[in-house]
């Protein structure tokens, strides 16, 4: 059993095809989708998505995403997304560091952009975490 799945970022489609199992970071915590899942609608926390078909597992990092599950198809739409193995570790690290510094600066000066910056920090942390997990998987 497999279900038609598509992972679409606003710049480009990331994955389209049949798959057996998907794991995502839903609004209420991690969730897995198997073929035959009931209709579900949720937004996604910034983080990793795993798509399994047969023996093959693909990992993606998504930001500002939504998940729509229907009996006939699973759709994931995200404002930004990329393959985890396509993100360089040093870039993820430097982005996280820049976001941390921006938040620190904004909180000491009482900037009203603090909420937005903390959100960016959350995204940057999630991205770094996804890349580190990708590297660990690579070594196994």
């Amino acid at each position, binding site marked *: 059993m497999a279900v038609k799945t598509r992972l679409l970022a606003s710049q480009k489609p990331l994955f389209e095809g049949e798959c057996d199992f998907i794991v995502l970071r839903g*609004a209420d915590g991690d969730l897995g989708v198997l073929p035959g899942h*009931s209709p*579900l609608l949720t937004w996604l926390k910034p983080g990793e998505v795993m798509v399994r078909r047969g023996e093959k597992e693909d990992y993606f990092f998504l930001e500002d995403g*939504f998940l729509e599950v*229907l009996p006939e198809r699973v759709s994931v*739409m995200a404002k930004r997304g990329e393959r985890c193995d396509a993100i360089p570790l040093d870039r993820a690290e430097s982005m996280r560091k820049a976001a941390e510094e921006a938040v620190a600066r904004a909180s000491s000066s009482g900037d009203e952009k603090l909420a937005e910056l903390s959100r960016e920090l959350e995204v940057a942390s999630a991205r770094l975490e996804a890349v580190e997990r990708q590297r660990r998987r690579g070594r196994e």
Partner: protein
Amino acid sequence: MATLRDIRRHIRAVRNIEQITRAMQMVAAAKMRRAQARAEGCRPYALAMDQAARDVAKIGKEYRHPFLVPQEKGRGLLILVTSDRGLAGSLNANTIRAAHSHMLRNFGPRYLVVAIGRKAVDFSRRMPVEMIHHRVGLPDQLEMGELGPAVERATKAYLDQEVSGIVLAYSRFKNLLTQVPTVQQLVPVPPAEPQEGPQTEGDYIYEPDGEAVLERLMPAYLLSQVYHAVVENQASFYGAQMIAMQNASSSAGDVIRELSLTANKVRQAGITKELMEIIGGAEALQAARR
């Protein structure tokens, strides 16, 4: 009659124009390829967001977001996407004509406009419509966030019941030669047709709950559609401009050929006239000597 010098000057002028249009054609071709890639990359995402919104409009019951509830007929709001610059043939005129006639049919002439692109702004100033927001000078490498204020203004107009519907108009890039003027109803979200969308009567499971999900999904839906429209429109613009400049270059070539022909005729006529004078003179001299 024009002298040879006038004609040559004219040829030089047309040749300069041809060089400029040819250069613009090549610039547009290069930009078009990149814009086309962006438009085609974004299209599946935008379609899926549209589909999700329409699916919810069809089967969602737990929470009816205002975007899903048809309003009593009032004024309309048009989000009009055009290019900033012209020299692109009838591209913007076609979009504007399609959009305007849709608004007249569905809402009457005094609708509201969110204008994106200078041509849309110019249009809104000419017409008896009310422009509530405008945005010009969007970069080619567009970030979705750039369109946030425009979409928020449109949302506010709807939620405050200034308008009873939001319509989006832009030019879809089909291929290099074809740009399709596209008018799309955004709000209230048109429910998915019976044969498409979810084939179930039951509602979704929402996580965490219907209100929380739809309060996020609906603004994201609106933004995704407007963003997609702008990206498509950019590709259309460069495509149309490339073709317009190609036509201009070839017309310039035609003019140069015609003028060269005239120039040669004038030159030849001059030579013939001089020859006739010389021969006539020589004959007169001979006749006098006899």
